[in-house]
């Protein structure tokens, strides 16, 4: 946590601060979600416009279970990305990433900045794979995840419904973080073992 808060710049040179969510952020987080147009809330899993939803998140804040990173512009939150860990079971090597950016700040690379931060954090926490789930119509999100090293692992047709009741395919994308570190391990061994042969 010593690297936060961190100042970053979006593509249009807006200076934004990114940092982990804290308990003091409840009002700003609720305001952020309530300001999202319905189109941007179509695919969210919980009713984030409800105060009790946000209060529950804040009350249960535990970075070991969910690591939430927010982007702040002045007093306002303009982006929220979360990394969900599994502490037990057959998904314990895997974390799930989710990200939402305020409409006015979309397409400026802010989502990528937040997700890149969480992908790096996951690597530090020993996570081997990061999963991202989205609906098949979220094409720009799929492209953003691709740029971060995610690949489409599966698509389940007519699998989920949005908040308007419309059915969509579910796309599951996976970033194999362990591949990165396998490359590092291979590099260390390659150089060192080569001289032992």
């Amino acid at each position, binding site marked *: 946590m010593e690297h936060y808060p961190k100042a970053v710049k979006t593509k249009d040179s807006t200076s934004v601060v990114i940092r982990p969510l804290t308990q003091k952020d409840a009002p700003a987080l609720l305001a952020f979600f309530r300001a999202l147009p319905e189109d941007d809330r179509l695919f969210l899993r919980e009713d984030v416009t409800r105060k009790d939803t946000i209060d529950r998140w804040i009350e249960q804040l535990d970075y070991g279970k969910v690591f939430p990173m927010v982007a702040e512009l002045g007093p306002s939150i303009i982006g929220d990305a979360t990394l969900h860990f599994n502490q037990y079971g057959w998904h314990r090597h895997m974390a799930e990433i989710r990200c939402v950016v305020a409409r006015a700040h979309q397409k400026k690379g802010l989502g990528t900045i937040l997700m890149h931060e969480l992908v790096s954090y996951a690597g530090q926490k020993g996570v081997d794979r990061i999963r991202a789930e989205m609906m098949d119509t979220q094409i720009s999100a799929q492209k953003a995840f691709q740029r971060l090293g995610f690949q489409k692992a599966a698509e389940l047709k007519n699998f989920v419904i949005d908040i308007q009741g419309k059915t969509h395919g579910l796309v599951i994308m996976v970033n194999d973080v362990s591949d990165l570190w396998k490359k*590092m391990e291979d590099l*260390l061994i390659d150089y060192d073992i080569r001289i032992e042969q």
Partner: protein
Amino acid sequence: MMTTEIKFGGFGGQGVILAGMIIGRAASIYDNKFATLTQSFGPEARGSACSAQVIVSDKEILYPYVTRPQILLVMSQEACNKFLPETTDDAAIIIEEELVKPKALKAGMKLFSIPATRFAEELGRKMVLNIVMVGFFTAVTRLVGCEAAREAVKASVPKGTEKLNLQAFDRGYEYGMSLVQGTAAPSVQ
């Protein structure tokens, strides 16, 4: 003219050669100096100890082999036992303190130790131990600049791992700086 002979030692897979390569790259590409790197192909390399020899100089290096290292960086006891006798009487000895207990240090030698394994584990990847050592080396020897070394780390590690590797570098560098603050840097030349 200043020429410094350095030996990096450890066991295979610790990233000994990569550490040497990063320092050589920092000096030659990012710090406007000259550097050579040689690796051991002789019988000494067939055991578990492996080593890299780096020379850093202000002018062209005509003979690339290290004969008497003025700096020894070791990450295993075996490498320390093996390479310590080769060093100069006033060498700077840089060790991973949980893995190495140096024996028979000469009076003029300067010992710099760091719990690099613990730092690497705290960062979440034990394999960045060598990069913590590179940061520590950079701080205590001041042979290459911090920014040059950071750039060399970035250029040497796999894409996607730069951030954690740089954190590992910074951890070692900061620890090294806190250690040498108020004390003279090792005068190796």
